[in-house]
């Protein structure tokens, strides 16, 4: 009945600086081990599966280019989530913002908003990127406004708005913009495509067949900007202050409502841009399944990267690799299993950052 050495958690004063890094890497490794056990239980050899995983994702430049394609939306969404999470705003609505961004970007082609024949490619693509960001930020404005003005829980709102965005898109691709009854629009003209590596195969033959597109550059630039915002700017200071103690921020004269709305819009803009890169860089049309739950994976990416923009780059490549590998093996759910377990572990590992685990040793047993 009596536990001989009861464990208790003591609030830790000093988590070492390397601790967050260790917990993130540890969570990923442990997730692979646990998934390995699941794989072994189904009769597969986990080591063989993983080595195949690795080969499928990093085995060749072509494979790596595919990884980059998958990593691009994850990177943008992960950055947006990092920014929102820094202020302790739980934006789970990246998926919806992604879809609205993709929709508005597609509108440039489908309406069309500009003459697709005469307008230069860079102008069309820029306009699509801009509208993608506007779409995402407008869709982010809704939960931001509700949170700021009426203090409605942003998790619920963003989660539900995701469904609305998907259905909104469906309305257009099933109805208005349907291509010959298929649930997709017509293919965009070349002038509305983000440049890809394969476009330069003539000059550099090694690029032939590589689908990595310029969206990754958006992502990398965004990473630098988000870094500057969080760690260098006054705005980043305000976000951090609100995130750590909103009461103190209010006391210091910071307008929390305005910043809540703003953060939601910026976070949404990044997700909307991800949606644009997907339609303009990958599928070249608006269709039903443009996202393999990027919006939700982005949450995990941000969390695993501990909201550090540069770590987000690495983590989104890792998750991109998992997505690519999942195409190669059956059941493909394994990589989602790994993702899910990773999130589970990374969230539970927070306890290691905040507490020390102690064993209570009785000093002197009395009879």
């Amino acid at each position: 009945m009596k536990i001989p050495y009861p464990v208790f958690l003591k609030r830790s004063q000093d988590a070492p600086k390397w601790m967050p890094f260790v917990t993130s890497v540890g969570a990923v490794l442990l997730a692979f081990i646990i998934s390995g056990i699941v794989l072994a239980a189904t009769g597969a050899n986990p080591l063989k599966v993983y080595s195949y995983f690795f080969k499928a994702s990093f085995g060749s430049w072509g494979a790596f280019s595919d990884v980059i394609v998958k990593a691009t939306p994850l990177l943008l969404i992960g950055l947006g989530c990092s920014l929102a999470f820094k202020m302790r705003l739980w934006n789970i609505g990246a998926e919806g913002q992604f879809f609205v961004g993709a929709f508005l970007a597609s509108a440039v082609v489908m309406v069309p908003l500009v003459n697709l024949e005469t307008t230069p490619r860079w102008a069309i693509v820029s306009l699509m990127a801009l509208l993608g960001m506007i779409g995402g930020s407008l869709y982010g404005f809704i939960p931001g406004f509700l949170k700021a003005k009426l203090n409605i829980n942003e998790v619920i709102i963003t989660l539900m708005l995701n469904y609305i965005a998907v259905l909104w898109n469906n309305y257009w691709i099933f109805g208005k913009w349907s291509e010959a009854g298929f649930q997709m629009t017509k293919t965009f003209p070349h002038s509305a495509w983000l440049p890809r590596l394969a476009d330069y195969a003539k000059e550099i033959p090694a690029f032939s067949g590589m689908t990595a597109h310029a969206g990754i550059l958006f992502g990398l630039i965004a990473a630098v900007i988000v870094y500057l915002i969080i760690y260098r700017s006054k705005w980043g200071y305000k976000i951090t202050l609100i995130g750590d103690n909103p009461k103190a921020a209010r006391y210091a004269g910071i307008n929390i409502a305005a910043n809540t709305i703003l953060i939601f819009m910026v976070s949404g803009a990044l997700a909307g841009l991800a949606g644009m890169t997907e339609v303009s860089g990958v599928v070249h049309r608006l269709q039903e399944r443009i996202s393999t739950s990027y919006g939700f994976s982005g949450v995990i990416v941000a969390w695993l990267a501990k909201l550090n923009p540069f770590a987000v780059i690495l983590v989104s490549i890792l998750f991109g690799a998992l997505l690519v590998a999942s195409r190669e093996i059956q059941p493909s759910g394994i990589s989602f299993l790994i993702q899910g377990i990773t999130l589970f572990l990374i969230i539970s590992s927070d306890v290691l950052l905040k507490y020390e685990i102690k064993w209570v040793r009785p000093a002197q047993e009395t009879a």
Partner: protein
Amino acid sequence: MRAISPIKDELMTFTEEPNAIPAVEMRDITLRFPGVLANDHVNFTLFPGEIHALLGENGAGKSTLMNVLTGLYKPQSGEIRIHGKKVSFNSPRDAIANGIGMVHQHFMLVENQTVTENILIGLDTPHFALNLKKFDHEISDLADQFGIHIDPTAKIWQLSVGEQQRVEILKILYRGANILIMDEPTAVLAPQEADELIETLKGMAAQGKSIAFISHKLNEVKQVADKLTVLRRGRVTAERMDLENFTRESLASLMVGREVIFNLQKCEQTAGREVLRLEDVSAVNNKNLPALRNVDLALHEGEILGIAGVAGNGQSELVEVITGLRECTGNVWLEGKNIANKPPAFSISHGLAHIPEDRIGVGSAPNLSLTSNIIMKRYDQKPVSQKWQLDYVAADSLADGLKTEYDIQAPNVQTQARKLSGGNLQKLILARELSSAPRLVVAMQPTRGLDVGAIESVQQLLLNQRAQGCAILLVSEDLDELLSLSDRIAVMYEGHVVGTICSGDFDINQIGLMMTGTIPQDLKSPSSVEDSSGSNENSSISAPSSRFDEVLDHVKSFEESSSPSEEADQSVTPPEEPSEEDLPPSEILPEEDPELNLSEKERVLRKVLGEKYQQGDVE
């Protein structure tokens, strides 16, 4: 329930008797936390029927020692004997089973339940059906036995803080405790309530209960305790001493380890022009109930206005209204600008500094660095602000300078705020607020929970600001602090300013009475006595509450029967008489007799009070 030991007439026999078995005997208790020796071979002995004070600064190890006694911590060495029997507690449950109960500083009561229900929570009986009436009787019998006045059927939210504390005491008595640990019980009480509590405790001791009384207030320890143990940095510096041998000063030096200067450097100066004025300010609290009612106040350069009152009588709301954190009706003028309902940033930019009550929850960002906490209100000013960027190098050097100037003990400016001790965190907040050359400092409970040394330096910093011509609004529940720092004291009760008293006329009894809502007879003038403008006629006494008016009527009728005179008492001098036609009848009060001596005044007061109570009974 545990049997209660027979009543003893002579308390001292317990302690004098060499053969008596101590209720609690803790020997050589050592408890080490990582990096801190919280208790270093501490001895603590408590005899039945004794009130034993445990005195020490914050972090001296008092609470740790008592937590060992309540089974929360397990000491690394040492032994505990309860009534002579050696025990080893693995959980608070074991301690309760041994008759040990603790009344914590923060009550653990369910607001929407009755006293009885709260007392029964967590007990095994009643098993299924709850016959509340039966338990109500049991509890009121128990309360009567110890002279505790409480209505068992009252809901907790209807009770005052003092009454809630009685519920906590009853809770542990009902569980059969005969060893009571009181953790700074008077910290939340008004002086009269504290006196009542002390009487109750003495009564319980007389009935054989043993009471450990944790405190860092020197005066009350002298008042309540039979024996004294002093802790300093985990060690006992005085064990089971008789209190007669000590003066306030010698107790303080035992606690702090050095001489403590109780006389602060307060220079004589006259107040300058007006900095802050509140006109007819009303506001509601978080529950949407009226918390401030038609408050008028004025505050001048180089003046400290103390706000006295039992916690929860509108002080927090007053501070929040002035600092822009709460909406209100009426006007709040700061340096000629109306800051009512303006965002906090507005008043900050007009020279308002705010030392909040809740240092951790409001005054700081616990996980951010010292630097980030220092620049909280000036991240938008040069040199920290560089266009869109924040110059962290400049911020660090600013923080470094203030760290030295205000003597903030921390390894460096990158240290997280939550790692600072209470006193150092308060110094950090003071450094941030006072270094910006404010015109008005609003300080709420600036020394609460700090140890003697830190209190001294915080108070001196406030006095220095006063000397520099800053206006200071000081809200405190520590009357000693208010009396020693303030130039004027305004007393708040149920959202009203009951009255204002000037320094020189401070009388702790009178303030204590005013804190219970009684308007002393010689306080008939408007609250803000030094008001230069004529806008002070809506005095705080024009309280809308009918109870107030009743009291006023009594005052009036009494004054009319005695001989009214033309001179105002010197306690509060109205600067000018507001023109009478502007005033509603209830505000016109007769003048009083200047010849009334103090005892006479007291008699009047009693009479007024008595009539008020009689009136209440008739209703």
